[in-house]
Every structure is written in C-alpha cells, then in structure tokens.
C-alpha cells in the first residue's frame, strides 16, 4: 500500500550539490508556494499551545496509555504559515464565480460569521438549563417560524445536520405516518425520478424503502404518464426535486401531488433548489408533505470545503406530529425545548445528539433578516435572471437540450453534443480552471450526455457573468474545433490533472512516511 509516489515531488528542504541547477532550489516560484505535509515539518515534542502551570494530579486508578500519541506539533508561527500556504491552493467564492449547478455557491455575508461567534451562541452548552439559554432557543424558534412561513407548511424539524440527513428525516416521518396507518409493511416503494440527486435513492434505502425509478420525459421533466402508471397500494411516496436537476420547474407538480395523495402516498420534495423560488412560491401550496432546506444553499451559510451544512425539514399537517425529538415550542409561556419521549408520543425518534446546527441557524437567521420577505423574493428573481442570461448567451455555442422547454430556473443545463471527437465535458471543465474559474457541475444530472450544469447565483454581477460567458464561449469553440491544448488543461493550476485511478487502485489514505 505504500508504493505510491515514494519518489514523489515535494518542496526541497533547500540543499543542492551544484551539479544540476534547478529552476528554483525550493521548487517554489514567487507566490506559487508549495507546502509539505504536517508530518514532514512537525515535531513530536513541539507545541504551539501555552497552558497555565498546573501540578499534575493523576488518579492512581486511571489506566495510563503506554506511550504518547504519535502526533507532530507546530509552533504558532509555523502553524499559521502552514495553513495559510495551503489555503492559497484552493479556489473559493471569495476569489471568483463558482458556478457549481445544484450546489448554490453564493456569497457568504460576513455579518453572519460575526453573529455566529457572539458568545451567547458560540459559548453555550447544549445541555445548560433552558432558563440560561432563552436567547439561543429564541434564535431557533425565530428561524423555524421563517422557514414555516416561507414554505407554507405546518411545522419544521430543526435537528437534521445537512440536506441528506434532512431527506432521511422526511422519509422517516413518512414511514412513521404509514406505520401509524398500519401500512408501513405494505407501502414499501419510493418513486425517484432518474434525474434525482444520488442522495435521494440512498436515503430511501436507509429509511427502509425500496426504490423504483421514474424516467424523464423528452422535455427534461418527470414523465407524468409513467409516474401515474406506477402509483399503487405498494407506493409510500415520491421524492421530487423542484425545481428539478435539469433546472426546470416541474409544471405538473400539483397534478402529481394530487395523484400521489389520492393513491395513499406522500410527496417528499428535495429542497436543494429552493433558492430559485424562495419568496415567490410556497411548496405547501404545491401539495408537498415534506421538504428539507439546505441552509448552506438557499440561506448562504458557508460550504466550508465540504460542510458543515444544515437541513431543517418542513412538514405538512399530515406529518407534523411525527417530527423527531427535540421540538422547539414557542407559546404564551415563552420558548422551550421539548425533549422527553413521553411528552412527544408520536415523534418517530431522534436524528442526532442535541438540537441541530446552531452555528448555521444564527447565520441563516441573520441572512433572512437582512433580506426580509422582499429581499428573498429579489434573491430568487436575480438567481433565475442570471441563469437565463447564461442560457441565452451560450445556447448558440453549446447544446442546451431543454432550452425549448421554457425558461430555466436558477441553473442552466448543457450537453457535450457537438464537441470534436475525443473531446469531453471534462476537457471543457478543466479549461475553465485555466481561465480562472471553478468548473460547473459535470456529468450530472445523468439524463443528459456529458452534462454541464451552471448555477451562477444572484450574487454575481453582470460584469462577472460577462467575463465568465466570454471564457465559456471561447472554450466551447475550442471543444468543437478539437483544440489539443484543451486536453492538457489545466496548465496553470497548483496541480495538473490528478491520477484518480491510481488513488483508487492503491488507496493511501494516511501518511506513513
């Protein structure tokens, strides 16, 4: 397992023998700085933390470890430099447009960071007496109230920790409701459109359901006839993403919801794309029974290089009683947390320890209060306007398979149709890196060949969009013409294309020297 890259490249420690002079001794070039691993620069007996002088007083009964944990330490200046240098090898929203479709990479307001660090939110323990955290509980209650009103639903479960965790929560509520009806053992199937996020079928399986696929029609929307034909006494419900992953609003959503309800099932909506309709459309008005809201998408809590997220789930009146513990209740006596199973007999259980992603709640509430009902509506207007501007500006150079299906919502979908032989979506994406942009989402959704899903978000200016569109037009022309240089992209990034096959064939997940 240790045979990857044993002679691999890393910055020199700075000695040369003079026989062969390299371009630079260190391997660095001005601000293009490489950085060794922590384990190559740290020392076992070095520490960057100063403690009070305390005389150790160790219980004789404590079973002591045989040897110190083998972990390198860094002094504070070494540490700050290590991570600062690493940070410079990342692309980020703060650096430029980040058009990952379905991921919603919008600007992260810095007030929200400040608010999350206020001591009354950052330095309180989840199990302090409730009398000592009234303000923190009020934050949860205020955010819950906004989410319920923005979606037109009956209730919200606040504890799920990310979108996929919210999906699980919603499907468990559906399962619990079916159990209560005595149909938990017979309604075993969740219908999932083939354009769905991968989390949807995975979630359905973990919530104890079987998955049946529903095809997309030629217009990029759910094949209504196929869905209606599949409904029956074995169907627990459907999971629909709306707007869908092709960037289109599911026009038939009301018809679908009515038919599913008539057939005895429930409608779960993947709310990953709620940012396209927030303030303009309430999912409750469309017949939705459960929907998670990615606070890290619609309400702009930072993605942090892969989380943390937060995935509260809004629930219809039919499912509200099954929401997991704890519940945050606000009434004339104030706000309180209800945690005991005896007080919530229908709650289906508990999703996680404690009460959810408080650090995300404070940020999302600050975002919502900043925008207000009018600003949130403007958010979806501008997100949809920007995406349609992208679609209109690129459809003459890139194949837009569903451009005839009506306006797109917050994201525009293209395919690799028309590229020169041997040129792929990946080549165009890597070319975008050399142009100074993060690539769009590629090869998703699966219903389009070589899919490119572009979500500009509302926080991009027209000038930023025009610069991006210029780069995209140029790359589209090169991909169609078969410019060989494109296949070598990226050439200007901290690394060129990485060997992912090798990484999977000989997995090396920890440093072993």
């Amino acid at each position, binding site marked *: 397992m240790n045979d990857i890259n044993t002679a691999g490249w890393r910055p020199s420690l700075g000695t040369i023998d003079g026989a062969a002079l390299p371009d630079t001794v260190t391997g660095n070039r001005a601000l293009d700085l490489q950085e060794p691993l922590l384990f190559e620069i740290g020392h076992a007996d070095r520490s960057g933390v100063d*403690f009070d002088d305390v005389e150790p007083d160790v219980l004789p009964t404590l079973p002591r470890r045989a040897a110190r944990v083998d972990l390198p330490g860094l002094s504070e200046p070494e540490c700050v430099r290590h991570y600062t240098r690493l940070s410079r090898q*990342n692309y980020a929203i703060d650096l430029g447009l980040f058009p990952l479709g379905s991921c919603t990479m919008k600007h992260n307001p810095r007030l929200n960071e400040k608010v999350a660090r206020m001591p009354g939110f950052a330095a309180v323990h989840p199990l302090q007496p409730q*009398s000592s955290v009234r303000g923190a509980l009020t934050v949860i209650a205020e955010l819950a109230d906004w989410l319920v009103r923005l979606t037109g639903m009956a209730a919200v479960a606040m504890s799920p920790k990310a979108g996929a965790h919210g999906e699980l929560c919603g499907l468990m509520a559906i399962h619990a409701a079916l159990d209560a009806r005595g149909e938990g053992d017979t309604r075993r199937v969740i219908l999932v459109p083939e354009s769905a996020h991968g989390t949807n079928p995975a979630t359905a*399986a973990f919530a104890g359901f079987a998955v049946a696929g529903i095809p997309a029609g030629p217009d990029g929307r759910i094949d209504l006839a196929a869905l209606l034909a599949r409904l029956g006494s074995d169907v627990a419900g459907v999971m629909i993403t709306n707007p869908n992953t092709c960037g289109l609003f599911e026009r038939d959503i009301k018809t679908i919801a009515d038919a599913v309800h008539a057939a005895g099932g429930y409608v779960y909506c993947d709310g990953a794309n709620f940012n396209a309709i927030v303030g303009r459309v309430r999912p409750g008005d469309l017949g939705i029974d459960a929907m998670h809201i990615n606070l890290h998408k619609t309400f702009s809590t930072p993605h942090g290089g892969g989380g943390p997220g937060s995935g509260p789930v809004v629930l219809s009146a039919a499912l509200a009683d099954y929401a997991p513990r704890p519940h945050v209740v606000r009434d004339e006596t104030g706000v309180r947390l209800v945690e005991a199973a005896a007080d919530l007999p229908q709650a289906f259980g508990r999703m996680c320890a404690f009460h959810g992603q408080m650090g995300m709640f404070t940020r999302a509430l600050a975002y919502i*209060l900043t925008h207000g009902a009018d600003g949130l509506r403007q958010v979806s207007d501008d997100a949809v306007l920007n995406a349609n501007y992208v679609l209109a500006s690129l459809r003459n150079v890139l194949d837009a398979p569903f451009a005839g299906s009506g306006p797109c919502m917050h994201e525009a979908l293209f395919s690799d149709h028309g590229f020169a032989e041997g040129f792929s979506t990946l080549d165009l994406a890597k070319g975008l890196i050399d142009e100074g942009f993060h690539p769009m989402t590629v090869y998703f959704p699966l219903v389009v060949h070589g899919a490119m899903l572009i979500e500009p978000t509302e926080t991009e200016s027209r000038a930023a969009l025009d610069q991006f569109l210029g780069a995209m037009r140029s790359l589209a022309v090169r991909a169609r013409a078969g410019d060989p240089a494109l296949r070598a992209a990226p050439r200007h990034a901290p690394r060129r294309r990485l060997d992912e096959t090798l990484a999977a064939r000989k997995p090396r997940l920890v440093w072993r020297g």
Partner: protein
Amino acid sequence: MRMLPLGAADRAAMLATIGAQAIDDLFVDVPAEAVLHGPIPGLPLHASERAVERHMAALSAQNLTAEQAPFFCGAGAYRHHIPASVDHLIQRGEFLTAYTPYQPEIAQGTLQVLFEFQTQVARLFGCDVANASLYDGSTACWEAIAMATRVTRRNRAVLSGGLHPHYAETAATMARFAGDDLCMLPTRAEADSDDAAVIAAIDGQTAAVVVQYPDVMGRIPDLAAIAAAAHAQGALLIAVVTEPVALGLIESPGALGADVVVGEGQALGVGLQFGGPYLGLFACSEKFLRQMPGRLCGETVDADGKRGFVLTLSTREQHIRREKATSNICTNSGLCALAFSIHLSLLGGSGLERMASISHSRAVATARALGAVAGVSVINHTWFNEFALRLPRPAADVVEALAARGILGGVPLSRLCPDRADLADVLLIAATECTDMHDIAALAAALGEVLA
C-alpha cells in the same frame, strides 16, 4: 441591498438578451394558483446590517455563557481553550467559501488538510485509516453499526448502558427503519462500567458491540476484555469517544482491540456552539476500507508526477452507487475537521498530553471539593475529566438553583434519561484546563448552600 449586485439597468438589459418582457415571464411554469404576487404578507422586510447585528446581539445577551460562569457541563460536549489562530485560519475565505473538493487541481488546500486530518484521527484512535468526517459523534456511531452489519452480514448490535443516551436513541431510530435489532443495556449509576453485562449480551448473531470510552458517566471500560469477548463470537467492537482529549492520557481504543473507533471531535477546535455543528470522527481497520461511509481523501500524483490528493473510492458513495451506497451522506463537517486538525497540529502529541493531564487534574480537584459537600458522594471508581455525583435531591432542581446563582453546575442525568426516575439524583460534572480553582471553590460553596 448590499448582497445583490444587479441594478435596474442590468436587469432590463439582461431581460432583453433573454427575450423576456418581465421577470414574471421566467416563472411561467409555476402553476397559477401557487404564484405569489408580492412579498409574503406578515413577514418583515429587509433590514440594515446594523439593525440585524443589534437584534442578534440582544438575543445573544439573553444567554449565560461558559465565559461568564463557573462552568462544569460535559455529557458529550466539552469546553476547551481554542487557540486564537484556529478561528483566524478557518475564516480564510479560501477554506471557508470553498466547496467539497470535486476539482482537485484547484482544491489541494482542502484535500491536503483532509489527508492530514485522516492521518491525525487514525493515529489518535489507534486505527489504520480514517475518513474525512461525518456530521457528529451520534451519527458516526450509527454509521459504524451500519458498517458492522454489512461486514458481518448480521443485524444485531449490543449497546452498552454507558453509551450517551442521545447516541443510543439515534441508533434506535435508525435501527427501527433499517430493520436492525438493538440490545440496549440500561444506564446504571454504579462505580464501574457495565462491562460484564455487555460481554454477557454478546451472542453468535451479534454484528457489533458498542461501548463508549470513557462512558457517559466518565467511567473507563476495559475495552481489551470486551474486544476479546466480541471477537470470540465474530462480532466487531465499536468504541465511541466523545471526549478525544482523554486519549492524551488513556490508551487509544484501536490499540486495545476496537475494530472501529468513532467519536465526537467537538472538544478540539470546534467549540460548544449550543450543540452544533460538531464533527463526526470515523476510523477503522484497513480491511473495512471499501465498506466505510463518507468521503475519503487519498494520495496520488498529477500528470507531471507531483504528489497530490483527491477524493477517492467514490464507488462506495451515493452519487455513484445511489440506493446501494454505503451511506447517504454528502455534505459532512469539512470546516470543523479543519478546525480540529489545526488545533491538534498546534498541540502535537506533547500538548495533547499536557491538556489531558491538566483537565484530569482539575477534575480530580473538583471531585475532592464536591465530594466534601454534605450529602454528596462521587459515584465513579475512576474517571478522566468527567464523573457522576449522587445528590440528596433531584439534580435538575439543583442545577436550576445553581444557574440562578450564575453557575453552570453540570448536567443532570435526568436531562438525558427523562424516563428514569431512579437516576434523578445523579449529576454529571466535567472539568477541563479552562476550569480554575476559583470556579471549583464557587461551585462547592454554592452546592453546599443549595443543598443546605
């Protein structure tokens, strides 16, 4: 509005490019009866930065914080000193505002951090490999049980009564829908952990044994004995660590025979944050590599032969395997993993040992002081930085009375086990290097007054 760069002229010009008359034309596919023709009534309109900050600051001020009060709460979330450089570094926009590293050529910063994090977690837990994080300790605990059922092709798990009750409830909720069979031993307020009961409950159908180390009352189970009993029946031992700082002083679970070690990383770098976001840690033997949940970062080379890092083994994951994936997780706790990794790189092995030693010493001093209060006794035989007290009155009432005196005096066990009247008099007390002797004296004095 300061977050929206488009102006009226931009919007008009862009609509013209699109060929639409008005923004409403772009929403034509929404069913007419669901269209809202203006801001949702009854909700506030936009507000200035100053106004929002004032509102949130007022809510913040309504809470009694760990910085203001003598503070002794633990039970799965611990207050440790976080060096200032940790928060500074995680606020670098290149870390804070990046996405999951799907494009490795321009995400080497995040990826190298994850590779270093995985190595740190594996070493801390005494395991071969670790993943790039899960949501928190409780969900990591369930993911470990689910993995054990896949590996052993059995569906029964034994949960120690020393497992945090929230973790046990989370597992029970998942098991209900996944169809797994949990043998959940009761929480017991005794001097030693329930090792014998755990061992007695293991049978030939058991996929996994789940033992918290130190347990929810701070006791330290004999993992080696439980591992031997589990392995004799073909079951895996899953060790759950909610206070990773303990491993500065006591042996790593992997070294004692645990097959999977999961935990809550909050104690290092993340902070209390009223319960989240926290950091799920997951480490195990290399032989379970292809059954692991969550993201994995691996080393490779680029087209020039330079060392680099990528997300790997994604054929386990939901975006490839869909309903056959090892987990449905997508977003995890990347930024919390960064904070943990920075804090641990500042500490190093020696700093971790020192932090653990001081935390333990303060807990010993706390137990001495509180054990001397009339009517109060320390239940534990031994402990790291958390122990249980038996009080002459219900602990929840005592904690409320202490809070009224400006002291956050621990977690009543009844908060975690509300249906267990027999545990009402048990109070969980934690100390760390942030606990000073004045805090201990203040708690002991107040406890004496409250119980008098």
